[in-house]
Structure formats: C-alpha cells, structure tokens
C-alpha cells in the first residue's frame, strides 16, 4: 500500500499547489479541508475540487474542537465570532450556535443524548452535503458526469474534542458517545474518529492507553491524529516513541491512521522503515508539519529553504550559511549534486549559482518599533515564497515515494549522510533529529 499523501487546504491562494508537481501527486490521499472553510466558501471549494484538481478525494475536518476553546480563539478584533466559525456553528446547531463567541463548549453541554445525537447528526450531514451538493449544482458537473455519492468525502469524521492529560476523562466519554451516534448517520460511508490530544496526553501511559482502548473498540474505519504542537524535528526520542506507540495501537485491525500534521519522520513511519505505523500523512503547503490546536499568531514571515539532507525547513540565512560553508554554492553543478536537483531548483538556479539568492529575495518595509524608532524589515516577496514552497512540495513528493519504495539501507544511508555531512556546519542541535528518527524507527546506527 502506498503512503497516502494528504495536504491541508489552507487558503484559496494555495489551491494551485494541489496539482504541483503533478496532478497525480495527491491521488493516493487528497485534501483535508477545515470545516469552517467549507462552511464559508462551499462554491469556491467545489470549484477547487472539480475544476482545479479534477476530482481530488477530500475529508472535511469538522473542527468541533474549535468550540471548546476560549472564545477569543474564534472571535475577531471586535469580539464577534469569525464569519466562517459562525457558519459552522449554524450548521451544527445547538449547543454550538448559542455559545459560539460567548463561552467555551463544555462536556456538560453534550450530556443529554438528544442534544448530542442532534449535534452529531448535523455535523455528519454537513460533511456529507456541504461540498458534494455544491459540486452537484455546479455547471461543471455535467462535463464530469459524477453522481452525488461519488462527490462525497472519502470519510466522515465523528465530532471530536481536544483532550489533554487533565481533561481526557471528561471529554473521552463524550467523544465515544458521538462516535456511536455517528454510526446511524454514516450511510455506508467510512467513519473516522479523531485523536486530537496534547503532548502530555500522548506521553501519559494511562491517558494514552485509555484513549486508544476506548476509540479502538469503536466501529470506525480509521483515525485522524493531531498531537498539539508536536514538532518531529525537536521532539526527541521519548515523544517520537510515544507517537509511534499511539499510531501503531490505533492501526490494529488494519484501520487507517492519518497524521494530520506530520513531517518526514511520520512519512518514514508510514513507510517500510516504520512498518506502516500510519497509513497516511498530511502536511500543509507550508506550515503544516507542526501545528498548535489553539491557533496562535504568526510573527514576521521569513523565507525558508527546505534542506533535503536535514528534511527540515531552514531560515534562508541559515541555509545560506550551511551551504556556503560546505562549499556547495560554488557552482550550479555542485549545488545540484549535493543539495537539490528538483525541477524548481533547476529552473531557479538555471545554470548560475548566483540565482540561489532568489530563494531569499525580499521587500524592505519600514515598521514602527515599540520603542518608537523605525525598523526596516525584509519580507519575502511573493515570488520567493512561491519558489521556496514549490521546492518544498517537490521534495515532499520525493520523500513519500522514497519512503515507499527505497530499501531500509537506502533510507538509513540518506539519514546518516545528512547527519555526517552537516554536523560540522549545522551543529549537533541541527542534525540530532536524524539520529532520533533512526533510533525511534528501530534502525540503530552502526
């Protein structure tokens, strides 16, 4: 089975990336679409799925956890619920509709079976219909000729809630009840449960085991997994082992497990080396390999170049320093032989290594510093962001295929080469994750 390659739909500006490097890139997986986005712009998403991607598979993340956080995570500057979240709340009905933007959803709000049944029914109906009906009613459908059933999502996702080590005892029973109630609404479609938990819950043996045992016992086809802010490059062995243990337990019975925010470690885990510890891995077009469950602000954007040997995105100045010190910026040929020979890099470098600056080009804008003075900040240009992103997507595509088809020896050789070649310039901190990945995946370095 190939590793299912999923990508998170972020913004409409990014939709062209779902057919890059080729329209086939995401055929083994598809697009994960946030529920609020589907609620807000169903026609645009229908056009994206039908016209831009030629019928890509999709899953709608119902984003039910959004209602359980403090309201300021779903409200705008004026304290009003964001329009997309409001639409989602309207689609789900009570209790979300009356509390959105006012107070967090609590387990007690869903204690009543009728309330939870109604909420679950609406949540699944939303996923079944919001995009499939928009696609069915579009002008394009007559040329595609698909019926409503084929336009539906790859799987339905039962309502779910973010669980921490301290809250899982309250939320887990609600999640289990909602999965059971969702059985009545699946109409023969695949039903997925979600494991959206804190790192503490993942690391706690009792919490993790309770969650796995409870959810594995339910009649679901698969799981969406999202560990809050788990950065595979910084995680260390304990967390990586805990992630593997969690996903392998969920995989029992050959259930599908998709890591919603995973990097190369997850890709390897889903491949031969990890003995298919996951069935699929999803990432965003840019920032999706690690994400906080409660959204946080961005900071100043910086151009980042994906370093193939490190399997991580690195700030452009750091990438430049590493490559320069290795002598890999001496010519285009040296660069392609040692760093990257993807189509984007070949096109950008175009035989002249000086063109590597295109991955770091920016526009300088003056901003008022809190101290009162003016600060000049360089923001990456649109073209720079596009180049960095397309290089990243090319590499990701290669990574999925490599993890799928390469031998254990080849995969390890690649990881070791990254570690051994770059430790002198990136430092131990810069390469230690490669060691941890090898060890977690049971491939002890010789």
């Amino acid at each position, binding site marked *: 089975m190939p590793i299912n390659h999923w990508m998170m739909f972020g913004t409409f500006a990014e939709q062209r990336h779902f057919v890059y490097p080729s329209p086939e890139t995401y055929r083994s997986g598809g697009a994960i679409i946030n529920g609020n986005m589907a609620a807000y712009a169903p026609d645009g998403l229908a056009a994206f799925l039908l016209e831009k991607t030629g019928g890509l598979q999709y899953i709608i993340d119902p984003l039910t956890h959004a209602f359980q956080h403090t309201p300021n995570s779903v409200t705008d500057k004026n304290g009003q619920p964001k329009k997309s979240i409001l639409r989602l709340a309207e689609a789900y009905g009570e209790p979300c509709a009356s509390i959105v933007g006012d107070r967090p959803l609590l387990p007690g709000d869903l204690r009543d079976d009728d309330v939870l049944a109604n909420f679950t029914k609406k949540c699944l109906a939303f996923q079944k219909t919001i995009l499939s009906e928009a696609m069915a009613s579009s002008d394009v459908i007559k040329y595609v000729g698909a019926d409503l059933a084929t336009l539906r999502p790859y799987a339905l996702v039962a309502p779910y809630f973010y669980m921490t080590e301290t809250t899982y005892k309250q939320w887990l029973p609600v999640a289990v009840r909602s999965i059971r109630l969702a059985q009545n609404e699946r109409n023969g479609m695949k039903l997925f449960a979600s494991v959206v938990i804190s790192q503490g819950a993942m690391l706690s043996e009792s919490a993790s085991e309770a969650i796995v045992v409870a959810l594995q016992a339910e009649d679901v086809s698969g799981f969406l997994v999202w560990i809050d802010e788990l950065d595979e490059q910084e995680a260390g062995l304990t967390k990586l082992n805990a992630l593997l243990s969690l996903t392998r337990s969920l995989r029992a019975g050959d259930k599908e497990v998709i890591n919603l925010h995973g990097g190369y470690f997850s890709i390897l885990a889903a491949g031969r080396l990890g003995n298919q510890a996951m069935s699929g891995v999803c990432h965003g077009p840019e920032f999706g390999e690690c994400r906080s469950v409660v959204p946080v602000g961005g900071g100043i954007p910086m151009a980042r170049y994906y370093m193939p040997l490190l399997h991580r995105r690195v700030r452009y*100045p750091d990438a430049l*320093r590493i490559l320069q010190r290795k002598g890999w910026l001496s010519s285009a040929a040296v660069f392609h032989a040692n760093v990257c020979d993807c189509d984007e890099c070949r096109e950008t470098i175009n035989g002249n290594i*000086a063109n*590597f600056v295109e991955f770091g*080009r920016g526009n300088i804008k003056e901003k008022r510093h809190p101290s009162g003075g003016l600060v*000049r900040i360089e923001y990456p240009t649109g073209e720079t962001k596009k180049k960095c992103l397309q290089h990243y997507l090319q590499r990701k595509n290669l990574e999925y295929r490599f993890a799928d088809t390469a031998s254990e020896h080849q995969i390890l050789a690649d990881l070791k080469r990254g570690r051994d070649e770059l430790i002198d310039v990136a430092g131990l901190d810069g390469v230690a994750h490669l060691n941890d990945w090898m060890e977690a995946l049971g491939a002890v370095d010789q």
Partner: protein
Amino acid sequence: MFESELVSKVIDQLQREGFRVLTEVSNMGQSVDVVATRGKWVTFVEVKTRNWSRAIEQCQGHQQIADFICIAIASVSVPVRLVEAATLNGYGLLHYRRDQNDVVWIVRPRRNTEVWPPQRKYWATATRKVAYAN
C-alpha cells in the same frame, strides 16, 4: 542606557574613524543595528545593552554579507566570555565606557572570509534602493 543612545555613541566613533554609517539596515529578515562602510569594505555592528549572547547568534547571520562584524556593548566591565567568543569568531568588540564617555575597541575584527558575493551584491543593491528612497 537605552540601545538608541549606545547606537549614537557608536555612530559618532565610527564617523570619527572615517566610516559612512547607516542604521537599522535590513539583511535577510534581520535588521542590522549599524552598517559602516569605508571604501569597498562593509562592517556590520550589532549593538547590545544586554543579552550579548543573542548578538553572537545575530552576527552568524551576517557572515555571508559583511567583511567585518562587530558587537558594541555598554556594560560596566567587559565580560571575559564575550571577549573570548568575539576573538574566536573574528568579531570586533566595541565598548562604551561610561566614566570616560567614549567608545573604544576591545577587539579589532578580523576580515570575514565567508562572504558569498551574489548575496552581498543583492544586499548592496537592495540597501542602496532604500537609501535612495529615503
């Protein structure tokens, strides 16, 4: 002492030494506190009234652009570890002496050999554009 005051003192000193000086110059997403040029040579100065270890990190990000890289501090005494780190990396170290109200060289910078000419050229062009616009 505010960082802006220290910046002024450093500028005065560098101008006395014949440098042309710019402040808050952008470089690959960072902002360099002081850029001093003399002839074809470019010197970057990171000014710190505290947390000089952060300055060392920032200086690393300048190595593909600047011929000389310096740190300016205004502490009462000069930390030995900073002198060692600056010397090891080839960075210059300027110290503002409150009692004397002057800025002196503690360590002279060594010429940085890691400049990558295409990035330097790109930076120089972008910086000139901003200077003209102002």
